[in-house]
């Protein structure tokens, strides 16, 4: 965390003391808390979905019924425990969306962009993540359930995960347009183009509804693997850029100043 020029009291060393200092004195505390929420959420998301619940990379839609049942049985504890954690930390997404909405309020564009983005992403968590987790938890609950019903829950879960493509498509496009129009230099323009790539991956996921195997199925090379690569890069980028934005934040309304090191470099 950077020194706030003119903040006054010298900051003591030691991690706990520094945290206490920031809690008491840092004017950007709310922003840092939101960023911390974002980092925490995405890390937990990765750990739970990939490791604990074993739901990513997704299992094969082309599996036979017994194989699907076996997958649920293998993850009989991982699914409810992992997704229990996700159910709790879902609220961190509200802080993530709030921070990004705030970044758009800092731009020179209409506040409508920020509100639209915030509203869109606020309701995206339910069909896009929570419904998937609920369906998988219910699927894992009763190993003796009718296999056809287990398959239905399996389909519901993974299709719901892909099924919010329109939400993210429009949301990320809104952010892209806001960045391109922005005169306050809150984000670099290249990030707008990365938003376009992210929007593309939402378009590209559409064939998942049509296939149960091949590269266009929900676990396919195109609809999952490439999309996940883009998503990881995109998320890493915007977390870094938001961190830089917070460092540069001056609570004003004109162009956002550069970081001191960058200013020294360009002067």
């Amino acid at each position: 965390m950077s020194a706030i020029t003119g903040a006054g009291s010298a900051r003591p060393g030691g991690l706990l003391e520094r945290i206490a200092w920031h809690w008491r004195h840092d004017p950007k505390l709310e922003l840092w808390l939101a960023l911390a929420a974002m980092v925490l959420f995405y890390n937990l998301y990765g750990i739970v979905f990939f490791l604990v619940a074993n739901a990513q990379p997704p299992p094969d839609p082309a599996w036979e019924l017994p194989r699907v049942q076996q997958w649920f049985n293998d993850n009989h504890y991982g699914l409810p425990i992992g997704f229990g954690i996700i159910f709790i930390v879902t609220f961190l997404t509200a802080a993530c969306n709030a921070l990004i909405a705030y970044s758009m309020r800092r731009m020179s564009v209409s506040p409508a962009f920020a509100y639209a983005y915030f509203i869109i992403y606020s309701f995206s968590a339910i069909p896009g993540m929570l419904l998937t987790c609920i369906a998988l938890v219910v699927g894992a609950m009763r190993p003796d359930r009718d296999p056809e019903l287990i398959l239905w829950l399996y389909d519901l879960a993974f299709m719901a995960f892909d099924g919010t493509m329109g939400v993210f498509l429009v949301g990320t496009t809104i952010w892209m347009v806001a960045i391109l129009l922005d005169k306050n230099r809150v984000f670099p323009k290249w990030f707008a183009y990365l938003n376009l790539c992210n929007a593309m991956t939402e378009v590209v996921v559409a064939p998942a509804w049509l296939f149960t195997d091949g590269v266009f199925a929900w676990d396919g090379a195109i609809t999952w693997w490439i999309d996940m690569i883009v998503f990881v890069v995109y998320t890493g980028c915007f977390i870094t850029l938001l961190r830089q934005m917070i460092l540069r934040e001056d609570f004003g309304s004109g162009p956002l100043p550069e970081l001191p090191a960058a200013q020294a470099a360009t002067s």
Partner: protein
Amino acid sequence: MWALVLFEGMLFTLYFAVYMVCRVQSPELFLDSQALLDPRWGVLNTLVMLTSSWSIARCVQASREGAYEQALRNLALTFFFGLVFVVLKVAEWSAEIRQGLTFTTNEFFSFYYFLTAIHFIHLLVGFAVLGIVAYQLRSPARRSQQIVETGATYWHLVDFLWVIIFALLYVMR
């Protein structure tokens, strides 16, 4: 704008790579399916795209020289060729669908529709970009050369992607 070229280029490279891998895995299927495509559509579309790239390059050149009327005319020409491409592509798709060749027919045609469709979407975005360039050129108060060049770069990217798609889907046997 070069960031866009880089990102989109990498993304499409990944898609092309997946296409190549699938092609290597089932060469007969791909070859037989490719034979069902009429290469004349492809050639015509490629010529149209290349011409539109030429016209937008002339537009940028005129804009650099300050000849804004001429730049706008070249821009209109680019727009026109883009529309021609759209019409041709839709006609080609209609013909193929009437023949019974759809997205779910086989793996090759999944790729065919997929690649041409995402290119098509980029082209539609390109129309919006051309609109922004036109907006810039129209009024002396604006005329940011940087935006004009950026828009032209995007159009060249769309053209470049089409050439590769044409080579992969129509030509490479």
